[in-house]
């Protein structure tokens, strides 16, 4: 399904850009990170909703439409569906600990409660099984550890391969608090 493929591709590109921006000279750029997270959010929502509709219909999905700006009603519906999806999808789970440690130091947010342990109703949206194996475009490498750093247990919804919920539980909000 074209939309799904496009969304996946954009997500993959976005994630690699996010990782690359961490080693950029001059440090993380807030504006750029914000724009990346917005694109990722749209792509993630499209991907999510298209996977859902794929599952619910069970058949081959909606008409393929190229995902660029040529307006097509089908695409618009999907987009508006994506906007109306419940917010918890955004807030569940945390980005993998690949984020640099100093990001936490600069992080401005208060310690919020454990977001991945929200009500089970929401967690049931996560899919299990073969169909939900980690999308193959996500990086499977683990983060390089700094000297003295320890790897701690990955929270639910880690970005790593094998975490089936990775895509749907990606919290893009964590991108910004890296400052």
């Amino acid at each position, binding site marked *: 399904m074209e939309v799904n493929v*496009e*969304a996946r591709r*954009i997500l993959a*590109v976005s994630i690699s*850009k996010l990782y690359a921006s961490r080693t950029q*000279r*001059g*440090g993380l*750029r*807030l*504006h*750029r990170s*914000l*724009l990346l997270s*917005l*694109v990722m959010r*749209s*792509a993630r929502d*499209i991907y999510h909703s298209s996977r859902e509709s794929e599952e619910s219909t069970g058949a081959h999905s909606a008409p393929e439409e190229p*995902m*660029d*700006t*040529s*307006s097509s009603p089908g695409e*618009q519906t999907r*987009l508006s569906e994506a906007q109306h999806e419940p917010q918890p999808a955004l807030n569940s789970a945390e980005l993998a600990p690949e984020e640099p440690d*100093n990001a936490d*130091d*600069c*992080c*401005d*947010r*208060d310690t919020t409660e454990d977001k991945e342990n929200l009500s089970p109703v929401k967690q049931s949206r996560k899919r299990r099984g073969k169909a939900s194996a980690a999308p193959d475009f996500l990086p499977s490498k683990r983060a390089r550890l700094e000297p003295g750093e320890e790897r701690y247990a990955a929270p639910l919804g880690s970005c790593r391969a094998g975490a089936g919920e990775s895509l749907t539980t990606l919290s893009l*909000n*964590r991108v*910004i*608090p890296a*400052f």
Partner: protein
Amino acid sequence: EGPSSSSSSSTVGIHRPALPMTGWEQVCRFLDPEPADLSMEEESDTRKINNSFLRDHNYATEADIISTVEFNSSGELLATGDKGGRVVVFQREQESKSQPQRRGEYNVYSTFQSHEPEFDYLKSLEIEEKINKIKWLPQQNAAYFLLSTNDKTVKLWKISERDKRPEGYNLKDEDGRIRDPSTITSLRVPVLQPMDLMVEATARRVFSNAHTYHINSISVNSDLQTFISTDDLRVNLWNLEITDRSFNIVDIKPANMEELTEVITSAEFHPQQCHTFAYSSSKGSIRLCDMRQAALCDKHCKYFEEPEDPSTRSFFSEIISSISDVKFSHNGRYLMTRDYLTVKVWDLQMENKPLETYQVHDYLRGKLCSLYENDCIFDKFECVWNGSDSVIMTGSYNNFFRMFDRNTKRDVTLEASRENSKPRAILKPRKVCVGGKRRKDEISVDSLDFSKKILHTTWHPHENIIAVAATNNLYIFQDKVN
């Protein structure tokens, strides 16, 4: 290209107030040489055109990429900043009776290292020395002053000429060595003697430690006493005399950074009203603020935004609506904004939609995904008004730049390239072919070189002279009047 004189300008005729849509000619170019893989012949021609601006090495380095250009308020001086933290100031040659055709040429006047790379040990990150913006102060005495900024620090530079030096000191000789007091038998008064003109730049003020995020713009107030510096989330007001404190006048940082949806992309003072400034956002809106209303100007007094057209919605709608530059018109009645695909002119009295919208390169709308992948969609183009606010100009890819005449609604695409330009050659209008049959002179969208982008341009305040930065090359064009 034949053997070139260092490109001399044509005679400057009567200044035509209307936009010159045709007839832009190259005044001079300051080029870095081509990479070494080109033929030697071409390189030697290039070197003749170059003057002392040329660096020693034989390849285009990243440090030479021009990151900002700005005429001063009289147009006599042109400053450029580059990624290596260097500022080069050009001065317009004086009119001379013996060589009237050389009027209008700009020569290197001063070169200095404005910023150096720094390291923030606390956050473990490097602070780039790239000059993000230069703004001139209007001239008040013999010296010239400009503000230059990198991501974190603003500096006030004084550029002054020295053409005399004192000679005849009593206690030291001409080399500076202290004289033996027993050899001094008489007193004399040191006298100022002429010397070769020396232009020196000194840092008079350093405004630092006020920005957590990256500075994107600076703007001098019309009161000539204060200026603002702007980063992604805050605008700070400084007094030019005071470096150890600044006032924060806009702060859009949310209490919880996870709720961040918008950043400030540029800010500018109103050209006449010293209490008014505007700032643009990544969401495509502009806010006008009045500093008399409150100490913290978070509450805007005007809010300019055009509702999004739902039919053009895509993954990249947010990115392309982010405003990369905002500029007041010289008369203070309009605002111009640049987003990825358009330039818009806003009337300060009308907040709900722009007065005029100009398509810069709408043929890119179908290519946003590729432009996202190669990062071009994040490019920040600037825009400028001409002196009379009748024409606006902005850059594009393939070293193209565009001019729009607001009165006649005509527009033109020109190219800054070394292949196509000879001294005094007239620039030929270019055209991008969007589909169907490509005509002979047209270039197709897929042939555009996206690594050649014109982000920075500036227009002389009174005359039709423009400076265009194409990566590491500077082009100066003027209106050739027939």
